């Protein structure tokens, strides 16, 4: 497991480029399902570009935390992405951490995000932070339990090894463990990326928004990095989902052909997952905040079931 | 020359001092005389210790007086506590006189009776004949009654009355026990007057009639137990202790309880030698535990400082009895040690309580209120340290002695007893802590000026606390030796 600089560079680039695209895709597809034309798929790029160029207004109450947060959110998201195998089995940074580190990095981003929301003393930021942290807290056990399940199966928290294990001869994607864990992780994905039915990314209605409430005071490049970070996080979680459970086409070695095939497969899988998200978003209404924990506890139960099935099928080593 | 008539002198010096106070007028002179006398007795006690260690039991007056290791130990305790009391009494009564609480006549009463009281206690531990020992205990009771009643308040009279009635009754029963023992001695003994000496009885113990000895021990237990304040015969204890002037309370709680216990011990040893240890041991153990568990709740909800201290004495008597009752060398050793440490601790608490009483004119916790630490720092320090010691916390010795008893109990497989003991001790600790937190810390309601009493009672308290601390971390070899010998005597291992 050597640190291949090119691999890192490539995957970073891929993440940065794909993330807005995926968000754009989701937004457009959703519009189409609702019989609206919707913005073009590349709209997010344009937004980012505009944000970066714009002047900034920073609240007079804000402190350094407010200004540091966007960069931290952005960088942690990218770092997290580098821990996940994307195109190749071998994630470029897997030596530096596995699933646990990934969760930790995302949590760090969230920590700054929430503080950034509190910093300007606005009436909404606190609301957003409080809700964000609550939902994250309730989502965490399900997430961790699901990860544990697959990690136990693979005997490692290293995502590359997990992927490899699922590729390997022992793998069967109909294994109840995998199915249940996938379902659990999918719900967590919805919660973590602020999707309906947990949060509505499109709304700016004060009382219902969560993520947006924290961004309310951000403008200019800060806002850009915040948005970008969010979409990166979403992409990372999707990647995690697809490559852990359906590692088809992950390139075992860095040969051009394998890479090309891997990339194609990867795009396909991500689009599928995005599609599912779109369907969920369009077919569901947003839940009341205090209903969300029920949903997430359902995820927890699923993960627990996955664990028990592991217990049933796997013998002690 | 002194080494020849050590025991006689031990009795004579305090008695003489007491009588010599009769004609005196000045408080200073009387106090000084007392201090002097008790200083001498302390020296004598040390001498006695040395001789006992050197040559075993000492006898005098044709076997009328006899001192073995156990007696020597008790003598030491009596001497130390009396000395401290005399040191404290002088300035204590100075305040009372100034406040007009007592008359000079009563004052003389105190300085005359206290040495006699002490002399009586010396006689208890030095007399060889059980009969004389009984008479001596009675004498201590009688000499202390008037001390308890010294203030001549309604309550103090009541306390004294209960003390003398219950004590007198108890002693009558104890006398009956003594009679039974003597009867056992007389039985199938050709002489018209067989020796009534404990030492002699021990030699013939195996031949004594077990039924008589049994009966005798029961009566002695109830009788002397009453005087020693064992539950449920303890009821006079809080009344007398709280009503007596503090120096007397110190004497009562510091030694006189243990003296009665000593008398009981002699019977215990005898009956163990005759009946085997089981019988008397279990009775003592049971009463000890009862005392412990009775003491805890009373300490917790007590409203009066000195009454609370009295109940704490009950607790410690309980510990000692449990130690004796467990009956292994370790626990007996622990119990004897506990006697010593408690004798050094309790007077300090009573002296401090006396200061409080004189400055606040009440002993009710409510009346005293918060902030004694602020008003009377030195007294508060004494009270605090004494309480820490009495609660059985290190570095003070009571912690060690209690640990020894508990540990000995567990090592002997008496787990249940040890657990009960520990539980009761913890409860008492909690009570003591809670109660003293009511008065020591905090901000005083009314700011009292230091009326020059800041350093009151420092000599006495200092002497005792210093000794306690010293002997907690360092037991001089002779003391250790005498303790072990005494433990052997009680354990029936000559």
């Amino acid at each position: 497991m050597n640190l291949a600089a090119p691999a890192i560079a490539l995957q970073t680039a891929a993440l940065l480029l794909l993330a807005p695209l995926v968000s754009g895709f989701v937004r457009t597809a959703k519009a189409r399902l609702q019989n609206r034309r919707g913005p073009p798929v590349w709209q997010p790029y344009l937004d980012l570009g505009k944000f970066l160029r714009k002047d900034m207004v920073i609240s007079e109450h804000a402190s350094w935390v407010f200004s540091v947060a966007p960069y931290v959110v952005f960088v942690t998201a990218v770092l997290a992405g580098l821990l996940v195998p994307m195109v190749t089995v071998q994630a470029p940074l897997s030596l530096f951490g596995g699933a646990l580190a990934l969760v930790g990095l995302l949590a760090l981003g969230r920590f700054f995000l929430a503080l950034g929301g509190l910093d300007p003393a606005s009436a909404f930021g606190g609301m957003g932070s409080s809700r964000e942290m609550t939902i994250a807290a309730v989502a965490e056990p399900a997430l961790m339990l699901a990860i544990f399940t697959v990690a136990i199966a693979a005997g490692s928290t290293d995502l590359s090894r997990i992927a490899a294990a699922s590729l390997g001869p022992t793998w069967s994607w109909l294994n109840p463990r995998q199915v249940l864990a996938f379902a659990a992780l999918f719900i967590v994905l919805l919660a973590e990326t602020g999707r309906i039915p947990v949060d509505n990314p499109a709304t700016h209605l004060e009382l219902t928004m969560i993520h947006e409430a924290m961004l309310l005071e951000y403008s200019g490049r800060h806002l850009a990095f915040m948005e970008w970070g969010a979409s990166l996080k979403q992409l990372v979680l999707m990647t995690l989902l697809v490559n852990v459970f359906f590692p088809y086409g992950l390139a075992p070695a860095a040969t051009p052909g394998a890479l090309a095939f891997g990339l194609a497969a990867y795009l396909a899988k991500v689009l599928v997952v995005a599609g599912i998200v779109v369907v969920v978003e369009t077919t569901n209404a947003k839940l009341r905040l205090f209903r969300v924990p029920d949903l997430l506890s359902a995820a927890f139960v699923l993960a627990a079931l996955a664990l028990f099935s592991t217990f049933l099928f796997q013998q002690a080593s | 020359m002194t080494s020849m008539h050590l025991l006689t002198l031990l009795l004579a010096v305090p008695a003489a001092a007491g009588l010599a106070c009769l004609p005196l007028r000045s408080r200073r002179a009387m106090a000084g005389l007392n201090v002097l006398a008790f200083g001498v007795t302390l020296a004598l006690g040390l001498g006695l210790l040395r001789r006992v260690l050197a040559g075993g039991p000492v006898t005098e007056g044709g076997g009328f007086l006899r001192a073995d290791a156990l007696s020597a130990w008790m003598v030491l305790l009596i001497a130390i506590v009396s000395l401290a009391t005399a040191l404290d009494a002088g300035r204590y009564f100075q305040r009372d006189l100034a406040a007009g609480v007592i008359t000079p006549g009563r004052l003389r009463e105190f300085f005359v009776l206290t040495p006699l009281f002490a002399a009586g206690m010396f006689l208890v531990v030095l007399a060889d004949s059980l009969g004389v020992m009984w008479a001596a205990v009675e004498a201590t009771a009688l000499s202390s009654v008037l001390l308890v009643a010294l203030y001549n308040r309604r309550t103090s009279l009541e306390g004294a009355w209960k003390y003398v009635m219950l004590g007198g009754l108890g002693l009558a029963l104890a006398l009956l026990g003594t009679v039974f023992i003597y009867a056992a001695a007389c039985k199938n003994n050709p002489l018209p007057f067989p020796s009534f000496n404990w030492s002699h009885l021990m030699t013939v113990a195996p031949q004594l009639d077990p039924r008589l000895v049994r009966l005798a021990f029961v009566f002695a237990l109830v009788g002397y137990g009453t005087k020693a304040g064992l539950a449920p015969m303890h009821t006079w204890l809080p009344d007398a202790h709280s009503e007596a002037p503090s120096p007397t309370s110190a004497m009562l709680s510091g030694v006189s309880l243990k003296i009665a216990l000593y008398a009981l011990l002699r019977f215990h040893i005898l009956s163990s030698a005759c009946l085997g240890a089981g019988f008397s041991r279990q009775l003592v153990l049971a009463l000890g535990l009862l005392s412990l568990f009775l003491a805890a709740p009373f300490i917790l909800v007590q409203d009066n400082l000195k009454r609370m201290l009295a109940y704490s004495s009950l607790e410690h008597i309980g510990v000692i009895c449990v130690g004796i009752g467990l009956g292994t060398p370790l626990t007996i050793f622990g119990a004897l040690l506990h006697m010593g440490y408690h004798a050094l601790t309790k007077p300090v608490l009573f002296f401090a309580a006396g200061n409080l009483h004189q400055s606040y004119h009440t002993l009710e916790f409510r009346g005293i209120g918060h902030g004694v630490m602020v008003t009377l720092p030195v007294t508060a320090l004494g009270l605090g340290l004494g309480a820490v010691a009495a609660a059985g916390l290190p570095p003070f010795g009571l912690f060690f002695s209690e640990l020894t008893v508990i540990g000995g109990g567990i090592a002997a497989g008496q787990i249940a007893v040890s657990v009960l003991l520990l539980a009761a001790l913890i409860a008492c600790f909690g009570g003591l802590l809670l109660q003293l937190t009511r008065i020591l810390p905090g901000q005083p309601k009314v700011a009292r000026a230091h009326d020059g009493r800041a350093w009151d009672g420092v000599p006495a308290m200092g002497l005792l606390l210093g000794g306690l601390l010293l002997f907690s971390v360092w037991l001089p070899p002779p003391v250790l030796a005498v303790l072990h010998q005494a433990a052997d005597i009680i354990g029936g291992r000559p």
Partner: protein
Amino acid sequence: MDNLSIVLLALALLGYVAGALLGLLGLRAERLANYGAFGCATLGALCGLIASVTGLAAGGAGLPHQVQLLPAFNPFAQFSIRPDPLGLFFTLIVSLIGLAVSVYSFGYVPSFYGRRSVGGFGAAFNVALLTTTLVFLADNVFFFLVAWEIMALAFYLLVSFEHEKEEVRGAGVLYFVMSHLGTGCLILGFFLLYRASGAGGFDGFHAIGARMATGPRHAAFLLFLAGFGLKAGVIPLHIWLPAAHPAAPSNVSALMSGVLIKTSIYGIARVGFDFLGAPPNWWGVTVLVVGTVSAVLGVLYALMEHDLKRLLAYHSIENIGIILMGLGAALMFAHTGHPVLASLALVAGLYHTLNHAVFKALLFLGAGAVVHATHTRNLEDLGGLVKRMPATAFFFFTGAVAISALPPLNGFVSEWLTYQSLLQGFGTTPSLIRLAFPLSGAMLALTGALAAACFVKAFGITFLGQPRGAAAAGAREAAPPMLVAQGLLAAACVVLGLFPPLLLRLLDPVTQQLAGVPLSPRLSLAGGLVLSGAAPAGGTVSTLGLVLMAGCLLPVPLGLWLVFGRGATVRRGPTWDCGLPGLTPRMAYTATGFSKPIRMVFKALFQPRREVQREYDFSPYFAKNLRFESHVEEVFQTRIYRPLHWLVWRVSRQMRAVQAGSLQAYLIYIFATLLVLLVIAL
């Protein structure tokens, strides 16, 4: 090397003694007391730190087996210490924290000048450090218990230092009574061992469990668990902890949270692995469950607090829980015979012990600085301090990140190790028990996330936004010594976070001693830059690597900024107030409001009581003014402790009827006793 560390140890102890004496000498001279006492404490702690580090670095090898401090004064106690690795590791903890807190006190204590006895405070402080160190080093039961009790006493004095407050006195008493209960359990437990070994020496206790009958063995374990648990404040024995920590002066709170409650971890490790050994499975399970429960409930109650120091106190309960998870897993592995995993879990627990000591002390010192500057602990009155006390804010922030187990700081590392050991525990046993591992792992995740939420609240409400009160508005930065101390601990957080393998090497002798395996070779890869979970296949992490990588990634956003946003300007402006002019602090979220969603989610546990009073003019839709209040009370308080307290008092009061005051009654008692005894005797 070895005798060097012994000399230094001796110097440390002497330093504390000297400090105590100087404190007493300085009863009248406050300045002397302050500098003398805390100066000695600082030096002593420094010596202790060096001594323990050198000793551990030497692998605990070559240390004298036993050192007689004083001649055996009385037949009970041998005043002898034995610096074995476990003891040295905890000495390291106490010295490190002691060092920081002593330095802090230079700046903190002067606020007491003229108001109370600084000398007494310094003396008690030194005694506390001394006895705590001796607890870790004691060589026999009696010495241990003596040190233990004096420690409790010293901390009682320190806790009730500001004794004119009713609540402070109550807290002190509660602490002392609970602690004494614990001591009772310990005494019984130790005497059970004593009975088996026949001597009080800890050498004789080694693996004594094997020679004990099952009954006493299990009894001893439970007694120790209860006794140490009381000191550690594991739920439901924690009741004293949230009361005592806020009551104490802040440097004392730091010492308690950092050191005092760690003595119990030492005790459990010592007893569980060194003395009893060969644990049956249920021991480990019990500890694991206790730990999990304490962790989750601790953090949940912490979230409900808006008293800064009470909040931190509850976090101590949580972290003790996390530590116990590690120890419990270790016990289970010891049972199933996986020494490597056992030492991994042990390392996780011990590492977290050190980490928690560091960041919790840091947080308490920060809180102390805040309280010192604003004279309030109530979050609702704070806010905006990041501008007024920037350094304190930054250090507190560091502590918050660390305690929330976020990379790259130390909290993350130890929790990562804990996760690893729990994860690998699954494979160690075929029995259903193995489900305990991942489930407690999930609970650990919940704990971590909640802790993060709680510290977003703690830091955000305290330091960010606008000041919610005059006190906060007028706050000034803390005195230099206080900042130095916090800086020291913050640096420790970073170092322990970025270079774990360095410390893990110091832990080798400990695991060698307790589990028989030195671990660091298996834990560090790539020349100590990467941390691995015992089996490299199990997963690796490198906080240092992540930080460096982040450093490499930072050019991306900066580059974008340079490319696109060159012309963009930055302007300061008011916060968006929905067009209604005048944004007041009262419009921002309060601490209570922040934790409301959680309170709702866990309603079943909290059973919040809320009262709302409205006053209308004419229509219920236009309330004139509205009074809302909501409080959460601990279920243990209301369901267990209060009834118990009531019962005790009730019974005691009724007992008093015995002493009714009538002579006749007393005579009857004697008479009855006599009759009963006569019946027995005949």
